């Protein structure tokens, strides 16, 4: 599998992806083989259905949101580049990267980008604000049926009230960042990709 995958992936592509995402060569080939195994249509792109076939996602409360996060607005397919770009958000931040990339453009796995990724999961209408409704939806996804809508509503209110500093009754990205500033996002939003 792995060998097949790597043959299909051209070296220059790998290089580009490497540059863009910071994944190592072996990580890229490994993920590419995963990508192809997900790609039932064998057309080099993944559709929503391809993602939805992943069994574990069906029992992940946020599964569908995350699937959506792989697709850019209006797109129905995602190619390997896009796939990797999304995954790159979850690459742990390495020590040497911290300094190196300070000058250049911000890497995909920076704290801000990680937060932004999470933020966009909430922010369905992409107005850069998490409204009460949006929050409620996510909450509803994440809590069990033991909580009634009223409760959930009050939780949402409270959450917004806690984060909202400018009084617009929604959470902007800066507010979101601020609320989570004490959280070790770098760690909590990182996955140890196999080398």
């Amino acid at each position: 599998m792995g060998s097949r995958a790597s043959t299909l992936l051209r070296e220059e592509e790998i290089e580009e992806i490497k540059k863009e995402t910071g994944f190592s060569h072996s990580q890229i080939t490994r993920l590419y083989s995963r990508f192809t195994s997900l790609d039932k249509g064998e057309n080099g792109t993944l559709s929503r259905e391809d993602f939805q076939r992943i069994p574990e996602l069906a029992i992940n409360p946020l599964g569908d949101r995350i699937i959506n996060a792989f697709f850019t607005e209006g797109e129905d397919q995602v190619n390997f580049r896009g796939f990797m770009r999304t995954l790159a958000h979850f690459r742990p931040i390495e020590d040497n990267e911290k300094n190196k990339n300070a000058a250049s453009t911000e890497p995909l796995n920076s704290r801000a980008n990680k937060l932004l990724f999470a933020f966009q999961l909430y922010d369905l209408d992409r107005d850069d604000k998490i409204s009460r409704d949006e929050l409620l939806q996510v909450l509803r996804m994440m809590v069990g049926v033991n909580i009634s809508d009223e409760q959930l509503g009050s939780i949402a209110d409270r959450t917004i009230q806690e984060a909202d500093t400018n009084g617009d009754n929604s959470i902007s990205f800066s507010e979101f960042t601020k609320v989570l500033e004490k959280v070790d996002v770098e760690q909590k939003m990182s996955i140890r990709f196999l080398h």
Partner: protein
Amino acid sequence: MRRESRKRGGRKRERKRKKYVRREEERQRERERGKERERGKERDRERKGERRGERETGERRRERREEERKKEEEEEREKGEKERAKEREKKREKKREEERREGEKNGRREGEERQKAREKGKIENREGWRERRKRQGEKESETEREGERERKRGLYKVYISFVEVGPANVQTADYFKGVASFLIVSVGGTLVGLVFAVILGFITRFTKKVRIIEPLFVFLLVYLAYLTAELFSLSAILSMTFCGIGANKYVEANISQKSRTTVKYTMKTLASIAETIIFIFLGISAVDKSKWAWDTGLVSCTLVFILIFRAVGVVGQTWVLNRFRLVPLDKIDQVVMSYGGLRGAVAFALVVLLDGKQVRAKDYFVATTIVVVFFTVMFQWLKVPRSTSRKPTINEEIHERAFDHILTAVEDIAGLQGYHHWRDKWEQFDKNYLSKLLLRKSVYRKSELWEAYQKINIRDAISVIDQGGNVLTSARLSLPSMASRASFPEFTNVTNYLRENGSGVCLDLQVIDNVPGAKVEEDMETHHVLAGNLYKPRRRYQSHYSRHFMPLGEKERQDREVFQRNMKYRMESSKSTRHKRHKKERSIKKRRGSDPKEESAEKPRRNVSWHDKEPVLVPVDSEDDKAEHSEKEDDEGITFVARKIETPKPRPKSVPSAVEGSSSPLASPPSRPPSVDVPLPWKGGVGSPPPCVSVEATKIIPVDLQQAWNQSISSLESISSPPAPPTAAADAVHPRVSALSRIGTPRPASYTPSSTSSAFFTTSSTQLVHGSFLFPEKSPKEEEEEESFHELQPLMSTLKPPPPPAAVPPPPPPPGSAHSQARRKNPRVFLRSLVSAPPAGSTEPRSRGPTQL
């Protein structure tokens, strides 16, 4: 290392001397054999006067003897006469041992003044004997074990035995043997500990009626583990430790709260006593000059080197670790790790245990250890940041949980799984076998969630009472008015019901809850609700994927709910255009909120989910008493479930456990579905392996999955109709469902389509679509039921009140408004309390009051 080399140097000198004195030595031995008795007396006397000197000479003598024997042995070996040598050795050993014992006996006859000296003598004699045996062990593979047994305390013992053998005699092979014996000793100790852990868990399973001996068992069995390990010269400490670790989970669950407290505080007391004693000892010997000898070089070098070597070790190992760790250990961590270490009481105890005869530098070591201990204890120059036990804000709580889910999902997408493969395996094994064997039945079926709530409840009760002790009374007085209810209605209710769940304490709390302006509590509640109800990501809550057995429990319920929801969502989204999706959902949400029917569906679900097991169990019995279930069930899923199981189960079985749970006796079983529901979770599961192939199971199994998915997806795609009203959508949906259930059916032999679909019924999360979603396959029967369901609801609710014999029956909900939340809550609350809290039974009426209001 240093110590060893030092000693080695000493030993070499010793050997040289030995060569010269060998002949004399020979004679001496002869003499000893002959005049052993006299020698014993003599020695005692000598020791009394000049112990150290004697020890020194005796030591040398013995050592010389040993040397000699060893050489003999080697020669013999060369000659190929090992066998004979061994035998000779053994005989000699025995003889000597006997002689020595006799000497001791004689010594005993001597006056009281010699008591002390004799004690020492005994120890010495034994030491000598053991030493020799050990040497044999080193040299002879057969007796290896014996040698190993002697080396108890792991590495320390290994080193000690090297010392005892004498550095000159330690060959390369011995080092490996040392390592091997270290492994055997520690692994053996661990195994002994685990065996006793199993025994302990098993015993405590049956102590329900004699709670008083529970702590006793805990202590005795652990001590027994210690003794057993000691008996076999395995690592006693390890065995004790592992006995504790292994049994912890089961014993904690089995024994009563009081026993737990007893054990805990007894242990704490003992621990601090022991600690105090050893530090007293340490302090005294630091002052007592006869106990140690100062050597500035040794002390200062030791201090320097322990720091250096430790740092080297830590840095090296963390470097390796950091290659695999997600969050690398940073510099500070490493500094802390290299500075902290085992340089306290243990080090001191071990050094004091050194045999002064063999390690003649013992006094120096003692001095060094004391200095090191004092140094590391006193000079805590390191500033370790205090752990901030800050409560996470609600935002953090929610978002972090979201992060976890995201991570899990991304891991799944990226195909990174199996980190916890072995842990999963173990958990499954534990769940399937160990827990069943070692846990009291009533315990191992209880959900963790419930336990957590109980704990939280108790804690809250305490904190609330602390905050305003007299609030309680005033709150009671203010009960009638109940004004506060309006402010945070559902919330209080929920906490009430949670609290009722938990314990008797909650009853009062509930009242307190109603005191207006309890902001703190609100906060707390939010946290509770969130903490308890947020779905747990797989990482924390590992699932066990298994073809044949889906573990019952929280996880399953969660998966089921999420799965249902996701499916519904996907179906919806496939119907509508992608971009409009969220709007659609929102609108559905709204509808859901306002729709009373939906609400009613939600309610029961709630109950079901509390006892996560029922849903699974239902299918089994559902066919048996379909008629019955259509009669009285259907209040909502919950009741439905309860009834089902209850009938097939022998009454007596469920009764005892119910009694255990609540003080109120069960009366007229049929009329009180909810209460019956209580015993079920564990009852049902125990007898027969839960036939739990649900949608989920099919779903999760990878192989099937592909199938199921393909089918479902194809069916999905076939639905290309424009956005339709929810019901229509549901209808459209069902092909997929049936596809799924079809797949589910074949697995368990006993499965019939109807049972599968009823599984759907109970398991599915609360959706509008839900009803039609499930039923299509089963069509006529279920449909009827569905209808009767609604018709019966009022009836049902009237039926419900009777159950609580002791409790004030909640007002039967007026037929028309049966769906309103507050009303429906009553039965649930009642049920909850029945389920959970033993003490709740008597106090219930009071607590119920406020809820109704």
